[in-house]
């Protein structure tokens, strides 16, 4: 018995292909608009003054007064410095600890491995608000309140689980024979990690590191709760607490200028590591 396949003319399939291409183009354009418009709007707004802000003009006014004021503001510089410290330390610590944990979880066989992995996953389930008060107490006990380091300590609670998780799955997919070859070549666990695994984990490290950095850079709730004075604020809090010229004016323009400014480093980072990120996200999908 044979099933007859209905076939149409070549012109039909050509037309279908064109339609599909156009549809794909439209969807892509919509998505891009959706993703980019808020940022564009922030740029536009940041160059407008006073009443201009309330007109829905799509073109920027190209008035950079807000930016100038921003850079004259010593507190803003301090908060950028604080943010950099926090984000870099958080990233470094979570990558360092995450790699060690991932190697143990992904490679060494010990009985508690499964439950440990589950615990790691559980930690990342809790919403921030739930851990907030407990974390606050912890930070007070450690005497870290109103210190920048309190934030590093707090952020690790959500960056560490996901770096560990992602790196564990990367290490798991790592070819067993490669590691055995290293063992035959006389490598210790430490040397396998540093000489074989780490160099090959570059993409995974970059993409998870970047995510950790962005999380730490943008975090607001912990940063607001655990810091008090201007000297220890990070950028999101500083922006959130920007005051207007008067009680009744919402400082929309300066806020937008500040937001655009602090997003630039992130964009620069992402562009710089672009190729590596793509490689990292697809790592293991295709065996090279």
């Amino acid at each position, binding site marked *: 018995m044979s099933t007859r396949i209905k076939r149409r003319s070549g012109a039909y399939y050509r037309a279908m292909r064109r339609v599909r291409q156009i549809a794909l183009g439209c969807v892509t354009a919509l998505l891009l608009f959706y993703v980019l418009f808020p940022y564009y709007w922030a740029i536009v707004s940041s160059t407008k003054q006073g009443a201009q802000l309330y007109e829905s003009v799509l073109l920027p006014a190209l008035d950079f007064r807000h930016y100038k004021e921003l850079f004259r503001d010593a507190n803003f510089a301090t908060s950028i410095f604080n943010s950099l410290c926090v984000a870099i330390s958080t990233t470094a610590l979570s990558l360092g600890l995450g790699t060690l944990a991932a190697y143990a979880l992904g490679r060494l066989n010990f009985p508690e491995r499964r439950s440990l992995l589950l615990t790691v996953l559980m930690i990342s389930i809790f919403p921030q608000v739930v851990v907030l008060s407990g974390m606050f107490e912890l930070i007070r006990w450690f005497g870290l309140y109103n210190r920048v380091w309190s934030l590093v300590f707090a952020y690790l609670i959500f960056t560490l689980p996901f770096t560990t998780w992602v790196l564990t799955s990367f290490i798991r997919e790592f*070819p067993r*024979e*490669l590691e*055995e*070859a*290293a*063992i*035959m*070549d*006389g*490598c210790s666990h430490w*040397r396998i990690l540093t000489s*074989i695994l780490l*160099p*090959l984990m570059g993409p995974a490290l970059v993409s998870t590191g970047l995510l950790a950095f962005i999380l730490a850079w943008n975090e607001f709730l912990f940063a607001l709760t655990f810091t008090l004075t201007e000297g220890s604020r990070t950028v999101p809090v500083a922006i959130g607490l920007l005051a207007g010229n008067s009680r009744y004016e919402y400082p929309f323009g300066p806020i937008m200028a500040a937001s655009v400014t602090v997003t630039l480093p992130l964009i620069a980072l992402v562009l710089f590591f672009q190729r590596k990120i793509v490689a990292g996200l697809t790592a293991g999908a295709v065996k*090279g």
Partner: protein
Amino acid sequence: MASVALRSVSKSFGHVPVINDVNLEIADGELVVFVGPSGCGKSTLLRLIAGLVPVGAGDVVIDGEVVTDIPASKRGIAFVFQSYALYPHMTIARNIGFALETLGLSRQEIDAKVAEVAVTLKIDHLLARRPRELSGGQRQRVAIGRALVRQPEVFLFDEPLSNLDSDLRMEMRMEIAKLHANLAATMIYVTHDQVEAMTLADRIVVLNKGCIEQIGTPQQLYHAPQNRFVAGFIGSPRMNFTAVSANVSGASCHLMGPGNLSLDVAITGPGVPAEIGVRPEALSIAAARQGKLTGTLERLEDLGHEHLAYVRIAPETAWSVRLPNSLARTALGTSIGLDWRFEDLFLFDKDGHRLDHSLSHERSAAANGALA
């Protein structure tokens, strides 16, 4: 150089037994090939010897010394992996010299040794490249180079040629044979390729479900398999089998089976035949009802240098016949006879053990003759 011995070695992963009580003595300088169906534990056995997997029970002995608890890198063993397992981020030179680096040799020493090995394996022009820029055959050479540079006493190869195409496989097979002749090192070689096993091996170890079925020279395994498993595993196309019913009276035995099989054999030991086997190359075509078996010619395959015929002797059994010349296509579908010389007949009891019959000794003699 070193001998290798396994003493009652067993290994389970979780509750799954993978290696069951394996005993094996490998002489210094011998090349032993492990063969067996996929998943029978060949790689695991190799890893146990290497120390990459801790043994469950028993001992691994190298050069007369128990090394069961000695770490892999201190056993004087080199392992060539199936996937080559080259470090992707290192140059070929560094790949080869990495073990020496770990040992803490000086840069000059390492470079000198790497260069020497590279020349031997004809990869000296590739030293600055990275593994992904190499072809499969070249990667294989690097993998062997990485083993060579450490001057190990024992080489372990896990299906080293299985990723190569057939031309390269033949070339590399000869290289490995040459290497073995030159180094006179002990080598253990896992393969599922019959030709590799038969041509390279001093002795072949046939494994099945984690147990050794038989150890012997290629000729012994081919001519005098101890059981049905080995008989079916060695040889390609595989040996033809069919179940028979036996009527024993004293030393003589009458066999009846499908395809009008009716045969008298003289059994020289205890046991009752339950199955007979004949290799495809031992069969010849006879006229219908003239041979020892009768069946329907079902299919002909022309491989150029040889011809295969498939003869159905029972609804669920077809025998393959290897012939030097093609049969006429017109014979397809007709009834033909199959014949063989008596010494080419193998008898197996119901547990699969081979039984000797009065002419078996000629075959064993042939095996021993081939040995000498």
